[in-house]
């Protein structure tokens, strides 16, 4: 009897968790549509969005560029090690460029961006809510979704593809430093093979599309969690954690789906 009860409890628990997760996803989607509908102010008053691009994008430059450089250097070392077994070390440029542009660039940059900028957006909006700043704005007949949320949303969406591009570029530079300068791969082969193998549409464009989609995902999760946070210290701290966890999972899930679609479309 007790076993039956615990079995039923488990089913009820899973059911409850699923319903709550679906409801929250729905609420976040509706919130995103509300942000899009209220984006007129951000587009008209470009300064508001530029300020957020600075906070989300420019201030993330250091971590993105340093990480890109290191990831590229490691890829260079690992790639060289494997390729030289087959005597194809001149393919190092291709290997690194394709790995970065198609996958690692958008995905790792997005994961870093979610931790660095997504969490900051959630904490800032959550604290503004907890200290009645959003309610004060409402009382001044200014929509906080249009004035506070939308500029941050667009700041994140616009920064993301640029940061991913920089991550990939610095990664390629890192692989060049390790592969060509340190391990002796032929410089001409490194660049020319890369140039011949990397396709603008199939590779670069796909990477850009991915990073834009990740940017929308991170911006939605970060602004929704901040706006929806319980107005307490604990509420804001939990919301910030949820932003990092949920947007990281969302990035990985979206990457799987997008990669599937893209391979299907381009017939790789």
């Amino acid at each position, binding site marked *: 009897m007790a076993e039956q009860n615990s079995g039923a409890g488990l089913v009820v628990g899973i059911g409850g968790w699923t319903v709550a997760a679906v409801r929250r996803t729905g609420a976040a989607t509706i919130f995103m549509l509300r942000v899009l509908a209220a984006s007129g102010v951000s587009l008209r008053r470009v300064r508001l969005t530029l300020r957020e691009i600075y906070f989300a994008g420019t201030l993330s430059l250091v971590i993105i560029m340093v990480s890109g450089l290191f990831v590229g250097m490691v890829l260079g070392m690992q790639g060289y090690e494997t390729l030289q077994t087959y005597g194809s070390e001149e393919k190092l440029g291709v290997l690194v460029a394709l790995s970065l542009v198609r996958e690692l660039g958008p995905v790792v940059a997005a994961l870093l961006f979610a931790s660095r900028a997504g969490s900051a957006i959630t904490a800032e909006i959550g604290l503004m809510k907890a200290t009645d700043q959003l*309610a*004060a704005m409402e009382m001044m007949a200014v929509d906080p979704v249009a004035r506070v949320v939308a500029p941050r949303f667009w700041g994140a969406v616009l920064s993301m593809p640029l940061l991913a591009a920089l991550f990939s570029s610095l990664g390629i530079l890192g692989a060049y430093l390790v592969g060509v300068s340190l391990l002796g791969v032929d410089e001409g082969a490194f660049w020319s093979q890369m140039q011949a193998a990397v396709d603008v549409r199939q590779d670069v464009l796909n990477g850009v599309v991915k990073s834009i989609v990740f940017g929308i995902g991170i911006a939605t999760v970060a602004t929704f969690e901040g706006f929806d946070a319980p107005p307490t210290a604990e509420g804001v701290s939990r919301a910030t954690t949820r932003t990092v966890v949920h947007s990281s999972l969302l990035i990985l899930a979206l990457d799987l789906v997008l990669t599937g679609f893209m391979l299907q479309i381009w017939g790789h």
Partner: protein
Amino acid sequence: MTATDDAMVMVESLEFGYTSAASVLRDITLEVPRGKVVALMGGSGCGKTTLLRLISGQLRAREGRVLVAGEDMAALDREGLYRMRRRMGMLFQLGALFTDMTVFENIAFQMREHTMLPDDAVRDLVLMKLEAVGLRGAARLMPSELSGGMARRVALARAVALDPMLVLYDEPFAGLDPISLSVVGQLIRRSNDALGATSIVVTHDVQESLSIVDYVYLMAEGRIVAEGTPDAMRACEEPRVRQFIRGGMDGPVEFHYPAGDYARDLALQDIHG
């Protein structure tokens, strides 16, 4: 107070609860005449702030009506509500200054959002508002650099930035030292009279509010239990009013939150057998 057409705010038979089971406010009827400063007083948790949120349209009543300048707040759509709020100012409990803007930008915020005033005019108006609260010299400071009393004065200047017809103050005296408390009190009175506005002050600070307001509504457990001029309230012998005004520990409002038997909670019954 008797009902008149000259009321800025009329609340009629208002009922409100955050859940359908429990009512926070019951049968509230009150009137705030134009040009007056009216206090809503009562202990913590008696529903004062909730009533203020109903008057400002942040919450909607379950039953009854809230009329501001003759308009039913519950019947207004978002646009109507925003139109109304442009003529209202509100000072939040802890100031709620925008922490990413300077003092100057905080006061200029509504002017920039709602008017087409040129920068020079905005600057002059902001400096005049700051001068009125004695903080013109603090225009370039960030809110984090202000003391509690200064932040409250800036919030007050922001609340009246667009010369509103109605100003709502939510606990303007909470957490202030005696000097700041008196300054904020005088500023509320002075700005109300200078602007020809109407003010509602939600507070549990008895002495300061009785010295600046024209009329007092005393609330307890979601109802209005007494009303009158400050002098009438001071002279009132009704036990609940007397306890609140004089700050007595014993009276109709009990010191203890309802609890079970004290001896049993301490497990003393075993010792006594």
